[in-house]
């Protein structure tokens, strides 16, 4: 009989927007680990004794787990991890660790304007979940224009923004130009929430500009390259790789009246939108 797996150690939590990234030290190859079981309970403490199966959050073969879908206002969870060997033997559970997700501006800010719902899905957007092939036909100039208050995500905001890595879209740096009207010039910086359901294996750069001034280059992670065909990252077992980006928009770049926020996929492959929003700080 092969030995019981060792107890998982080295747990570490990394707070992230609406999620917590949990990592631990990988065990070796002998015995081969069938999977790790991640148990979690809301709050900053865990009861003693073995974890309850009702608290099983996930099983994964990787020494890493992203606990996503958390409250955008921030949430604390306490985790324990145990390994299961190829023979079905379970290790003792790890020591508990608590992690707290970062609050998102979608919860802490005051909504000025949004395109879509921050819900892990592309489905409310034009051509979702799999009609990407029509995007080059409908937008031959590689320019998508959306006027807040006049346009609608379902008819005017395609679910993908292609990039120069996308041969099917003509290898162009597509731009999404979003016009937002503000009643007055803001006194404080605002925040732009860019939530993505997936990106491509190419990663890339999403360049953010406000009224013609470059604000920042968002470095896109390598994604699952599946958000062009699948629209719901919240389904159990979904392999879509969500990412969350919330750069500040300096108050000085915004003005009373019309403002143009432009998102250009300057390098790499497409992004699949979850939602985009402009938020004022409370």
């Amino acid at each position, binding site marked *: *009989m092969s030995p019981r797996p060792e107890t998982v150690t080295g747990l570490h939590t990394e707070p992230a927007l609406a999620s917590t990234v949990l990592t631990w030290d990988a065990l070796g190859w002998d015995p*081969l680990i069938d999977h790790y079981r991640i148990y979690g309970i809301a709050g900053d403490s865990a009861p003693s004794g073995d974890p309850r199966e009702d608290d099983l959050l996930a*099983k994964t*073969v*990787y020494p890493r787990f992203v606990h996503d879908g958390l409250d955008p206002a921030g949430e604390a969870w306490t985790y324990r991890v145990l390994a299961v060997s*190829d023979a*079905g033997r379970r290790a003792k559970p790890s020591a508990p660790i608590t992690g707290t997700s970062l609050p998102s501006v979608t919860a802490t800010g005051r909504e000025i304007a949004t395109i879509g719902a921050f819900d892990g899905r592309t489905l409310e957007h034009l051509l979702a979940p799999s009609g990407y092939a029509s995007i080059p036909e409908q937008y031959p100039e590689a320019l998508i224009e959306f006027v807040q208050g006049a346009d609608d995500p379902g008819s005017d905001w395609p679910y993908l923004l292609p990039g120069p890595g996308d041969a099917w879209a003509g290898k162009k740096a597509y731009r999404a130009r979003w016009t937002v009207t503000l009643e007055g010039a803001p006194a404080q910086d605002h925040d732009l929430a860019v939530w993505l359901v997936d990106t491509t294996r190419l990663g890339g750069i999403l360049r953010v500009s406000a009224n013609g001034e470059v604000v920042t280059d968002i470095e896109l992670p390598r994604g699952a390259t599946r958000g062009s065909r699948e629209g719901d990252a919240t389904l*159990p077992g979904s392999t879509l790789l969500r990412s969350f980006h919330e750069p500040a928009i300096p108050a000085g770049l915004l003005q009373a009246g019309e403002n143009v926020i432009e998102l250009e996929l300057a390098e790499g492959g497409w992004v699949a939108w979850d939602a985009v929003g402009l938020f004022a700080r409370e």
Partner: protein
Amino acid sequence: MPASAAPAPLSRRRLLQVSVASAAVIALGIHAPEAHADPPPQREGLFSLGVASGAPRPDGAVLWTRLAPEPLAEDGHGGMDLHPLSVRWHVARDAEFRQIVARGQALAQPELAHAVHPRVEGLEPATDYFYRFSVGRQTSPVGRLRTLPAEGADADSFSVGVVSCQAWYHGHFTAHKHLAAEEDLDLVVFVGDYIYEYGITETNLWRQGAEVGPAHAVEIETLEQYRLRYALFKSDPHLQAVHARVPAVVVWDDHEVQNNYKGDVSDTGIPDDLFAHRIAVAYRAFYENMPLDIEALPEGPDTDITTGFDVGSLARFSMLDSRQFRDQLPVDAEDQYREERTILGMEQEAWVTQRLAESPATWNVLANGVVVAAVTEGHTDMWDGYPAARQRLLDAMATSQNPVMLTGDIHKHVAAELLADFTDPGRGNVGVELVCTSVGSDGDGAKTNPNAGVWTQHDYIKLYDGRRGYVHVRLTPQEMVSSFYVVDWIEADDTAPKQLTARFTTPAGDPHLIPS
């Protein structure tokens, strides 16, 4: 009857490579004469996943079964208690097992999902045998195998079935039903995508009458999920019939791990250091579920599934791994044509080059996961993405007599003549490539489709058919006859009759596909 017919001794060299605990587990799964695990009362249906043989030799083969009274148990252990269990096996000259020529015992252990891989040796060459397993009073279905001809011996003929791409959820395994009924059959070659990793949901479950639970609805990544996926696919009675009919040899493509993975790199952005864990469990499950020799048992994320064998003086087979050692996607055209670029890895290239150069066989049969023939530069997942490596392979094939490549992957029957140099047609042909369509993947299919022209634009492509089916290959000292069979439907049921869509004769010494 050979007096020496016996279980195979274990490779001490191989066992020294693994830890003490693992070595014991491996050893007992192959040969456990003193196995102590008396069978406790067991549930019925221990042999629900059938039997198989593989790694054929002139004096024997590996026998395989995996105990699973509840094959779709979600923990991947098939409904077995997490304890070892003794499994006896017998080999006989007759189907009634009156003339038993070899017997032995192995230990089915939870570490290997209660799979056993005993190797029987000491059998007569070129001889038909029957085998079966037993636990307590339960007895497995009977499997058949024919040992290979003796080294260097003449062989009048040798017939092979070629199959690939078994998306169980896309339809019934009608192709396997017909293949198992072939009277002239010595071996089946699986050329990749034995399983698929995708979640099975209502959108891709086209096999009418089939239902699966939510445990199957997600992309698999843990060992228990890979084990469960093999159990689901192997529960098909027609696949079991093929395995019971003849020995099987196997190469993999990508879906045994993940779509389009390359080397140690995922296609979906999973970091390499994490993806190694998934490769390790996927490779382990492959070993557990195939009739493979011990050399194919992975150590972590590394393994060796390349193997070779001779069919007397008639044929030499070389089974290639075109997935584990390949370079990544080319970054540009210059990179794509880079001389050092490899799909097999340099060590494997050297191995197969030597096998071809030194081969005394009339036919030199290779098998790999992806198409070798030049089709379009855009097919970077195939050998088109590795043109320099292809040229090296073609050069190596040219050193041997009558090379033949067996391939799958594309879900289409394609027959191609392999040019000595695809950039210089004037140099003539070096061999032929027989690309087998899928058993299940893509459902019913159709004879042609809008993409066919990408293939048929080339004069050296002699067949394109997008229906499901298998290829039957008959080798003799004089010629190779390749028969491409199709069925018109697989989604509704398994009753479609087989049709011969094309048959080619390739005379020895003349590397062409001549319609016949």
